[in-house]
């Protein structure tokens, strides 16, 4: 009772008639206008259209909806509409809406200790109502009529009784119309769409039983019918092939259950973005879980690569605190080390049991290898490479012809990966991919600085199918891509078409390039550094790969170009391109000369 009194008192103070505008004495402390205070508080929860979508869809999930439709205009800046078929609200409930801390989800302090719903603070709708023009239409389950309420800039309109289907519809227009500073800093439409799509991906992954649809500017982005399992939902997002190779994990302890799917180490990602971790149905980022994931793949992934995981943790609600951060992204466990240990063990178990499947052609190779090995055991002499066996007649062997073209230059390709080159003072061992990569990167950059780049149009344009966030990310990059000569356009749902490429990238694998680019991007799709990312991805995928045989002419060109450019010691990612061994070092190794002194 006492608590209520103080709160009442506080409310009184706020509504008392202070001289608010203009403040006659700027230096004096005064209470904020409730509207201003509301806007500030709203800013903590509602940062951008994504936050609105997230809050509204979470409400729909909490309302027990089996279908949720999201419609957006202009990346949510024009309109965000969320329709669900959940339990809906009675007119009385509706009239309570938009009051701060009005919620049906918790009522006592003890409830905060054991939150089972996604939302709980009662802040979301109130905050959204303050910074937009919101209309809400709801009909409680089993009722014949519903009610409608509008709020603009925090001002509530009249409650109207209207006919409506069961469930709730929320329309948010003109987000941040009254917070120009915030509105100005909203990102470009594709950026916002990528972010919204990512948020919905997370919600949809944790609720495979719900039918989700997303439409943007009246075009369908995705339509996810209810899936019997999480794995099916993963498949609808990332493709059947992707889902086929997933490893199942499961570990159950009295207070915590860890289950989900992980990808074998051979398929990793360029960032930690493909680590989806959920706690009690909510997407979370928690340092102990992330660490355990990374740790379980240790020594299985090359550096800079991250595992792809979908983890679903179920814990006793009382053992975790989700009320740490307004966005509820962060959580705190009572016993973090226990969680770490259990996740680590679950993943390690799955990874140790996993044996890679061998494709038919590899099986053939394996069979042949075994033949070779038996031959070796019987003492059959290892043959010299055919190139050394043939003489005069150049017609008989292609290998032979290439050898004859070899200029007398002292270099050789080894293991189809490195070029070993004689220098006046020793030898250079050059990583062919890293060197080519920095050369392409530098050349592309130079051409851009010169202001012109030769662009080869494609006779047969390449179609690349993407998931929705990557699709929006790439569309957001259109301008940067065009600057380097890659014309990219939308081509139907989640598909892009590549119509031209810089001429100098003759062997660019377009699909690989687009994939690489999406991995590098995360969410930023604007600014100069993005152009740099595009260049790096182009250079990386346009460069000759390791394992690829180069003919001497190609090696010669590569080395000559290197000599004409500065700063080629490291590839754009910072890996070295060249290892130099001096004659002295070689002499010392072979004990040819005793070092002086």
């Amino acid at each position, binding site marked *: 009772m006492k608590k209520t009194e103080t709160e009442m008192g506080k409310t009184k103070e706020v509504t008392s008639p202070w001289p608010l505008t203009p403040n006659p004495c700027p230096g004096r402390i005064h209470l904020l206008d409730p509207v201003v205070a509301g806007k500030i508080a709203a800013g903590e929860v509602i940062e951008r259209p994504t936050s609105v979508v997230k809050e509204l869809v979470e409400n729909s999930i909490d309302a027990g909806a089996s279908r949720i439709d999201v419609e957006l205009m202009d990346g949510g800046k024009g309109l965000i509409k969320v329709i669900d078929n959940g339990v809906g609200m009675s007119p009385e409930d509706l009239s309570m809406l938009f009051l701060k801390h009005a919620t049906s989800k918790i009522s006592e302090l003890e409830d905060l200790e054991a939150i089972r719903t996604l939302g709980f603070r009662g802040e979301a709708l109130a905050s959204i109502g303050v910074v937009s023009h919101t209309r809400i239409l709801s009909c409680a389950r089993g009722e014949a009529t519903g009610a409608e309420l509008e709020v603009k800039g925090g001002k509530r309109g009249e409650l109207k009784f209207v006919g409506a289907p069961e469930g709730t519809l929320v329309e948010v227009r003109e987000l941040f119309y009254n917070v120009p500073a915030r509105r100005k800093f909203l990102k470009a439409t594709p950026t916002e769409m990528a972010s919204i799509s990512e948020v919905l991906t997370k919600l949809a992954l944790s609720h495979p039983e719900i039918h989700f649809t997303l439409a943007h500017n009246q075009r369908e982005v995705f339509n996810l019918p209810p899936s019997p399992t999480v794995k099916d939902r993963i498949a609808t997002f990332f493709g059947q092939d992707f889902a086929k190779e997933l490893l199942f994990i499961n570990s159950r302890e009295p207070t915590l259950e860890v289950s989900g799917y992980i990808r074998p180490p051979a398929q990793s990602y360029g960032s930690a973005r493909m680590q989806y971790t959920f706690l009690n149905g909510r997407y979370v980022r928690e340092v102990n879980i992330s660490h355990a994931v990374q740790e379980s793949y240790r020594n299985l992934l090359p550096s800079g690569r991250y595992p792809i995981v979908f983890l679903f943790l179920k814990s006793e609600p009382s053992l975790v605190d989700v009320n740490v951060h307004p966005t509820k992204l962060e959580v705190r466990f009572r016993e973090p080390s226990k969680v770490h240990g259990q996740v680590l063990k679950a993943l390690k178990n799955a990874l140790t049991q996993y044996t890679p499947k061998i494709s038919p052609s590899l099986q*053939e*190779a394996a069979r*042949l*290898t075994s*033949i*070779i090995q038996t*031959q070796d055991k019987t003492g*059959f*002499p*290892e*043959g*010299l*490479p*055919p*190139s050394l*066996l*043939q*003489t*005069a*007649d150049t*017609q*008989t*062997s*292609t*290998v*032979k012809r290439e050898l004859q073209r070899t200029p007398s230059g002292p270099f050789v390709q080894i293991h189809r990966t490195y070029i070993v080159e004689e220098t006046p003072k020793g030898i250079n061992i050059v990583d062919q991919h890293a060197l080519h990569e920095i050369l392409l990167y530098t*050349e592309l950059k130079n*051409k*851009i*600085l*010169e*202001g*012109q*780049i*030769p*662009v*080869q*149009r*494609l*006779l*047969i344009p*390449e179609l690349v199918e993407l998931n929705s966030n990557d699709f929006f990310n790439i569309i957001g990059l259109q301008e940067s891509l*065009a*600057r*380097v*000569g890659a014309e990219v356009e939308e081509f139907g749902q989640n598909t892009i078409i590549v119509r031209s490429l810089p*001429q*100098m990238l*003759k*062997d*660019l*694998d*377009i699909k690989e390039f687009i994939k690489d680019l999406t991995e590098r991007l995360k969410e930023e799709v604007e600014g100069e550094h993005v152009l740099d990312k595009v260049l790096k991805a182009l250079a990386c995928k346009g460069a*000759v*790969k390791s394992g*690829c045989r180069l003919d001497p002419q190609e090696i010669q*060109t590569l080395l000559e170009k290197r000599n004409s450019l500065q700063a080629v010691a490291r590839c754009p990612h910072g890996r070295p391109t060249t290892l130099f061994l001096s004659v002295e070092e070689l002499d010392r190794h072979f004990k040819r000369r005793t070092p002086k002194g």
Partner: protein
Amino acid sequence: MKLSCQKSTMLSSLQLLGPVTAGTTTKPILQAVKLEAIDDKAVLEATDLEVGVRCLVEPVEVQEAGTVVLQEGRLTELLREWPEEKICMETRGSMCLLSGKGGVFKMAGYDPEEFPVIPTFSDEGSVEVSADELEGMIKKVVFACASERVRHTMTGVLFREEGGELRMVATDGRRLAFARGKKSGGGKTTMDGIVPRRGVELLSRIATHQEGNVLLKMDGTHLLAKSGKATLCSQLIEGQYPNYEEAVPKDNDKKVEADAEGLAAAIRRATILTTAERHLIKLKLQKGMIVVEAETPEVGEAMVDVEVKYSGEDLEIGFNPDFLLDALKAIEKGTVQLEFKGPATAAIMKRSHDFLYVVMPIRLAETT
């Protein structure tokens, strides 16, 4: 096995197999040839699992039937160095014995059971093409295949029988070459598949080295060919070949007739003043003339006038000179017909009925 024959007979057959074994380096048995003596003939085989070639060794005297698998490089080398015209080979256990004035050589062989099986050729359901025609068609398209590293189906040549003629298509996504050829005979058959570049090149080689017409057929997963003493089997590339007909523009209204050799010479000269990073020439169409231009900041400028038959509007269009030269080389001499529409759309180069080439232009994009 025991057989004897002229050294040159054996060598000429081995010569056809050399390119097959030379392609592989990791698996020793694929660097070997199988020599099989049956009744009164001998057959040599080599394969790298993608392509296989079988060649009759003829004439030959077979004293004892049997099979031996020997390292191709060493065998060829040894026969070349052999001082006598006639050779005699026989197996001793797993070894193969070659002896005479040149010395006594026992070569270790592989187990014939381990040698991969190459499908055999039967004439049934095949089409017949003259060797010249086939070789000519291959020459007109094979250069346009995509390099190994990009789109897989484009690394091969599409073989298709349509409208009673043979067609070949190759593209790397930037330009496309199309050739038509007459059949010399053969019954009804369906030929529609993508042959790997290696298979196409070997086919051309066999057609050149053997006499008479070439028989061709497809069995769904393989291209099979027979020419004289040799047969070839090449795996087909699985997948959907791009719709090439869609890539051929239908409304190019600026039509030029030029002398292929003269145009090629002009382009070659202008190309000297380009670089690898800016490999670009411009064609400027004017009445009665094409001006071939190159302009490379760090290298210089070139301008070559070529007289042509043209009466349409002026047009300026950029190209990778190599792409134009490839097509002109395939045309060799005579008149080339060029058809353009605009500076950003595909151009056509063709010669009469048998060769059509579509090439996309290059433009300079402003990067700022």
